[in-house]
């Protein structure tokens, strides 16, 4: 078979795993976003025990290799609640990403000038109101560049969910490689697809960044 034809069939074969890769990434980023923002707020503005809890989550999860987190969550938690490997893998990846995202948002929260909180309190807002309406809208904007980086990392970490049996795009490349014994074709094609996905993500996020940029 000529190279172009092989390349074409390989791309088509890998694209069947695209849905899994993209949905795992989107779910994980969303879970991580919610967890990350929550933990960051607790860490910066929470009471001491809550801040300690958030710090412990961040330290422990970041210390454990993501693939181990996925493995543990799948086999431990999914033995209590019956989750599909797909959902368990995506949630576990989100749980791991949440720790990294909490650090991104913590940095962003801390770089909002302290005067903002003081001013919000002075006009009669409660602390929660001030965080919600004054601090977070600024912090999330400040966090966007770092968050975009995390998004590309999670996209690549989505390959790790195969540890619990979710055949995403890279696993499909392995199928091609072991069937045809042409790893350069299989993994080269996969690399190309990941590059396109990463460029798309970066493009969309840079547009969002521009749109919501803080005027300083």
């Amino acid at each position: 078979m000529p190279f172009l034809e092989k390349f074409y069939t390989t791309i088509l074969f890998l694209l069947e795993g695209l849905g899994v890769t993209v949905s795992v990434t989107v779910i994980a980023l969303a879970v991580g976003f919610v967890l990350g923002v929550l933990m960051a707020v607790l860490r910066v503005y929470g009471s001491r025990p809550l801040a300690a809890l958030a710090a412990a989550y961040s330290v422990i999860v970041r210390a454990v290799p993501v693939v181990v987190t996925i493995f543990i969550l799948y086999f431990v938690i999914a033995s209590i609640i019956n989750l599909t490997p797909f959902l368990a893998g995506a949630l576990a990846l989100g749980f791991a990403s949440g720790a990294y995202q909490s650090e991104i948002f913590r940095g962003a929260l801390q770089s909002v000038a302290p005067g903002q909180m003081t001013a919000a309190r002075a006009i009669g807002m409660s602390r929660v109101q001030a965080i919600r309406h004054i601090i977070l809208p600024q912090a999330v904007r400040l966090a966007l560049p770092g968050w975009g980086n995390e998004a590309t990392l999670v996209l690549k970490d989505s390959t790790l969910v195969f540890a619990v049996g979710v055949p995403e795009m890279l696993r499909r490349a392995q199928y091609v490689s072991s069937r045809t014994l042409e790893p350069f074709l299989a993994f080269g094609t996969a690399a190309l697809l990941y590059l396109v996905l990463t460029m798309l993500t970066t493009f969309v996020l840079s547009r969002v960044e521009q749109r919501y940029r803080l005027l300083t």
Partner: protein
Amino acid sequence: MRKQTVLWALVVIAALLLSGCTAVQPATGGAGQTGSADAAATAAVDEGLLGTIKERGKIIVGTSADYPPYESIDAEGKYVGFDMDLTRAVAEKLGVEVEIQDMPFDSLIAALQEGKIDAVIAAMQSTPERDETVDFSIDYRPTKDAFLGAADSAIELKTGTDAAGYSIGAQTGTVQEGWVQSALVGAGLTPADKAFSYERADQGGLDVANGRIDLLLIDAEPAIALADQLGLKILLITDSTTTAGKAIAIPDGESALKAELDKIIQGLNDDGTILQIEQANNLPDLN
């Protein structure tokens, strides 16, 4: 104010995605959800897992589909190979549907222990070490190993331990890797930094072809296919490195399931089905 609303809407969308994601199913060939067996479990106390499988009408079999000719995925995304045909034949005898779950070879035993899958059919050898954590059916095929070398390799092997001193590769988590570690490295015949482990057999094959390692020790059948496709030399086919045949792994203590599988395998052997699927998948007769 508007922009804030949009940002908050993003948070809400994220939360919605979470609650809605139970509806998202992976678009994969064959692999899917591990069915809930709670209802069936009570109805099948006597037969254990066998009862659960029959009640569910489906057996969930774990494999690692990167090991032709035993198990692989063809261009249409279907599970093919000797083990896959065997799986279907066994399921037919059990009178149930079959669901194949692909995962890394290393994860199979853990998935079996945690009840994520009912059985493992992945060219797995019934070694004493594995037998401590899971149960095995009777062997459905004997094991022979092959040493592969580069096409121009001058290495001569009469028995497994002749590989002493050469750099050698094996697949992670396999019996062959265990043999390299105990019989060569553990016995002081080969320095530890000359023993290599590969996630997949074909990676090892490529390293042999590229001259990065001298030898690759894997199962005889994939070795024959690998040698054919990469132009490698089969230096030795032997059972001096093997201790056990290939069998179906099931969770520990499932005696009813084991008895049923033993009976089915014996039957498939006697009526020539196993020989037939060996030939259909171009497996050499190792007996």
